[in-house]
């Protein structure tokens, strides 16, 4: 359990940092394109597409860290009024569909990326391959489902303690 927690938490932090760098790079690309277009009369070809793909990668890689820090919005005030044991049972019960759905979303995204890779589909403007970005998002969902698994195991092993 501790090993899983360490791996999941550390890797979610590392990928979140990578997501931050990607976002910074995206902003830099957009500004460079504006400067090029305005001052030099030269636009960076494919900026529109790259901004989309980079944003997707950054979002995918930061999903897990957000979940580790309980950043995904939930309504807490009703369940908080229940006894700790009831709260724990509810969380365990509802973690299962979340975990299954997120794992399944990750699997489907990998399958979708594989399909795009096999058909050789590329982006319309720059003819760039984009299936690696789909794999990154799929990986992000896999990590997110592992975070939910970790939280599930913690609740199962944690007795009545919150």
């Amino acid at each position: 359990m501790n090993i899983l927690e360490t791996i999941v938490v550390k890797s979610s932090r590392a990928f979140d940092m990578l997501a931050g760098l990607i976002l910074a790079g995206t902003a830099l690309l957009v500004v460079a394109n504006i400067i090029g277009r305005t001052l030099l009369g030269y636009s960076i070809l494919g900026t529109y597409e790259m901004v989309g793909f980079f944003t997707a990668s950054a979002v995918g890689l930061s999903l897990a860290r957000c979940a580790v820090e309980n950043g995904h919005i939930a309504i807490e005030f009703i369940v908080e009024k229940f006894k700790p044991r009831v709260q724990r049972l509810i969380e365990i019960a509802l973690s299962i569909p979340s975990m299954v759905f997120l794992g399944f979303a990750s699997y489907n995204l990998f399958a979708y990326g594989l399909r795009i890779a096999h058909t050789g589909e590329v982006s319309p403007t720059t003819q760039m391959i984009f299936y690696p970005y789909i794999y990154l998002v799929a990986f992000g969902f896999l990590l997110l489902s592992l975070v939910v698994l970790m939280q599930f195991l913690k609740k199962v092993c944690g007795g009545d303690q919150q």
Partner: protein
Amino acid sequence: MSPTAAGLTGIIIFFVLIVFRMPIAYVMALVGFAGFAYLTNLQAAFALVSKDLFSTFSSYSLSVIPMFIWMGFLAFHAGIGTRLYNLAYKMVGHLPGGLAIATQATCALFGAVCGSNTATAATIGAIALPEMRKYNYSPALSTASVAAGGALGVLIPPSVIFIVYGISAEQSVGKLFLAGIVPGLLLMLLYMAVVYILARRNPAIGPAGEKFSWRERLAALGGGLFEVLVIFAISLGGLFAGWFSPTEAGAVGVAGVMLVTLVQGKLNLEIIRKSLTDTTRTTAMIMLLVAAAIIFGRFIAVSRIPFTMAGTVADLAIPPFLVMALILLIYLVLGCFIDALALILLTIPIFLPVAVTVLGYDPIWFGVITVMVVAMGVITPPVGMNVYIIKGVARDIPLEVIFSGIWPFLFAIIVCLAILIAFPGLVTFLPSLLH
């Protein structure tokens, strides 16, 4: 089961699951997927999830969200709020309730570089509350004024909620930003009037602060106001002038905040790192919510609920304003329990066709009014996100005390709403200038 009955069942399951603390984004995606699979087929639902998730995350129009969020967090960590408060404090701090009045002006100014109500409340709360405590302001007035003032960040552009509404309702983000300016300023003035009246009636709750000479006041002008004007002009000015797309305006805003703070010697790697960490976390939360809402929206569309509802409303023999009042009442009640962003994403596919197609209301006006009603939820019990944030800043003040001070500010929002409903031109005039 008919498609509409399946849709209604899905909505009931949605509410049951979110009440039991399941993250709203997970619930929307899960119920949306299951409902879509039930009404079409499993194969179509499989394809829907993977395609919608990737196309939402990689949408250029949604890439505006991390840009404006980063801009706001950079401003937050670079201490722009402190300099703005110093300016407002020197201008009006000597009036009865002057520090709380200065707080409203600071929230509005900070809202011009930050699109988040929670970041605005946290920033200004950390700066203004110690000052108000020093001058013996009543805890209820001081905390409630910051919590309510934070909601100004929702209306004054850039606003993340307006971006999400714009994308969900397929409306121009630039027009929505322009539409929020007058309501935001009007609400700020109403908040100021509320504080002034309360402090005049009972001077003990908001004693006047120190009075500064005009020389000192003019000197303070060069600080915070200059920064905000420069950043606002190059970022949103370019958007309104049609030079930039919203994403470009956000990226230019980020560059603007960095440039201004770099010139002042206040930018360092730690500020960039902290702002990026906050940005990725907030962006992940919002983007997952948007993608999940799109999946849920597909289910609602195939359930034909929006069409059924629009048809039912069209057949009703009651005036449009009563239907609108009913819609706003639903938003008001749900806003007390559900986060503003999630509520907008959840309900716009259902209510927008009714408000715009059937009742004939302007979609920009509807967006501003809806966002304002939903924003009331950030200061009302039991969820009241801004109130919890202020509680985090002023840990010794009980939640009940903060909520007890909120009522006059809620009254100000209702007055503001009434004015905007009576005079819709206040909302639609500025966007009409944008071509």
